[in-house]
């Protein structure tokens, strides 16, 4: 964990020169008053937050706080009752799910999202389908980042371990060349060592490539150790938004909402 935290301070500055399409620190994804309901139950109740370019924004909270619904509403899988979502200034609230990836948003859903029947390589290729022909070098780059899945590229994805699946879906999302990556509970069911490794890689990608990440996590301690900004949700509402290290330092808040 200290590794990831250490690289944060070094590299946030470095990302300024990474050539991201939106200047680092500027709001990239903005969510205003977003409200979603399953029947009479409001899973999201007027959520407002923004994810900045070149930063990792972590959305934290207990089970049922509305974290997954938030991501699903942003990417259009759930239609909001009210509110607005903009990406780089463009209103995408009513855009079809299939169009999101073309607008620069890659959503990795909860539960790893590999297509078990396809091989590792085919899973990656699905991630680049919408872009037309993609250079082989881009696949090589993903395999360089995740050598463990490179060894297994011709195996069906259902043979991968949990950590390998998470690497595969992140690699697949990278092939879509997103401006922002939406990650839903990437640490779920993984050993702490693997979580640290994956979060460390995310940090590196954000710092060196100008990627932006909106990370939803129940594992608040790990998430805050890698994130720049934290947003705490409770029962579908934002409780607090602050710098990750300030949230880390707020013992009362941690006990009340973050469970550590």
């Amino acid at each position, binding site marked *: 964990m200290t590794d990831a935290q250490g690289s944060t301070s070094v590299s946030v500055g470095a990302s300024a020169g990474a050539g991201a399409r939106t200047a680092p620190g500027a709001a990239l994804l903005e969510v205003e008053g977003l409200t979603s309901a399953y029947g009479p139950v409001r899973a999201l109740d007027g959520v407002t937050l923004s994810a900045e370019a070149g930063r990792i924004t972590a959305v934290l909270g207990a089970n049922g706080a509305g974290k997954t619904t938030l991501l699903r509403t942003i*990417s259009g*899988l759930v239609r909001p009752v009210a509110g607005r979502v903009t990406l780089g200034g463009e209103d995408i609230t009513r855009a079809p*799910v*299939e*169009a*999101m*990836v*073309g607008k620069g948003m*890659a*959503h*990795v*859903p909860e539960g790893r*999202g*590999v*297509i*078990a*029947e*396809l*091989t590792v390589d*085919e899973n990656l*290729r*699905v*991630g680049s*389908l*919408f872009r037309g022909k993609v250079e082989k070098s881009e696949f090589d780059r993903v395999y360089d980042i995740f050598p463990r899945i490179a060894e297994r590229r011709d195996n*069906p994805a*259902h043979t991968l371990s949990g950590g390998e699946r998470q690497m595969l879906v992140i690699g*697949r999302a990278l092939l*879509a060349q997103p401006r922002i990556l939406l990650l839903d509970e990437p640490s779920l069911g993984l050993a702490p060592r693997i979580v640290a490794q994956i979060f460390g890689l995310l940090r590196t990608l954000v710092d060196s490539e100008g990627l932006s990440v909106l990370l939803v996590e129940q594992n608040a301690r790990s998430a805050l150790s890698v994130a720049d900004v934290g947003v705490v949700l409770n029962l579908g509402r934002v409780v607090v938004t602050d710098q990750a290290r300030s949230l880390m330092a707020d013992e009362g808040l941690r006990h009340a909402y973050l469970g550590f």
Partner: protein
Amino acid sequence: MQQFVNVTLSGLTQGMIYAAFALALVLIWRSTRIVNFAQGSMAAATAFIALALINAGQSYWVALIVALASGFILGAVVERVIVRPVEGGPELNAVIVTLGLFVAIQALIAIIFGSSFQSFPTPFGVRGFTIGDTTILLTPTSVYIIVSVLITMALLVALFRFTRVGLAMRASAFGQEVARLLGVRVGRMLTLGWALAAVVGSLSGLLIAGGGFIYPAYMDSLIVFGFVAAVLGGLDSPVGAIVGGLILGLALSYVSGYVERGSALVNVSALVILMVVLLVRPGGLFASSTARRA
């Protein structure tokens, strides 16, 4: 010996047709989890279109291509207009809808083309060749049936394995939500899947019609055998559908060729084979996930 070879050849030929029909069912089941009971009457409709063209003086091959093309369109229209509204709802709804469609299309065929028996041509002879004084029943028609089904299967494998559309179709079938998030137009892929399945179904309907008679319900026994073959293979596996079709074709051929009054027992035997296989392997012969690719 001569009888064994001939019975085997006839079983393989029939089995190829069952395999094609089973494959059409499997293609749809894999992508939409719907058993398309209307497959048979959809195929019958295209056979009547082909026969109308042949009777109007067109060649068999023109009629074949038009029939397959109309199968493609029919499959797409059925998915978009009739099946789409019940997709994702209770499973029974889709079953009832395809059953209803089965009856409706059959009735429509009777209204448009009449319900009398009409002979359907075959482009090749039905005479076997003779070595010395033994006649081998490898007829040009059975060669045509086997080759055309094999070509169709090879084309499907190539489509799914080596093309971007094929990859998108598989992604849509196995991971609908993930595929949508990755920008795949899942709805279009499902429509395309139904259209392709209807083409394969239509081919099986034309092949089984060749050299015989067609009438609105002529596909009914093929529906039963094709369904048995698909379930034998596990309903989820294209390879299983093909193997299931061949096994069933051979078994039924041996029953009718060797058992006393066997031809009357063919339908019962299909049921017995299905029950025995499902007792031993409830998921079908190819139910393991490793066989679910391709």
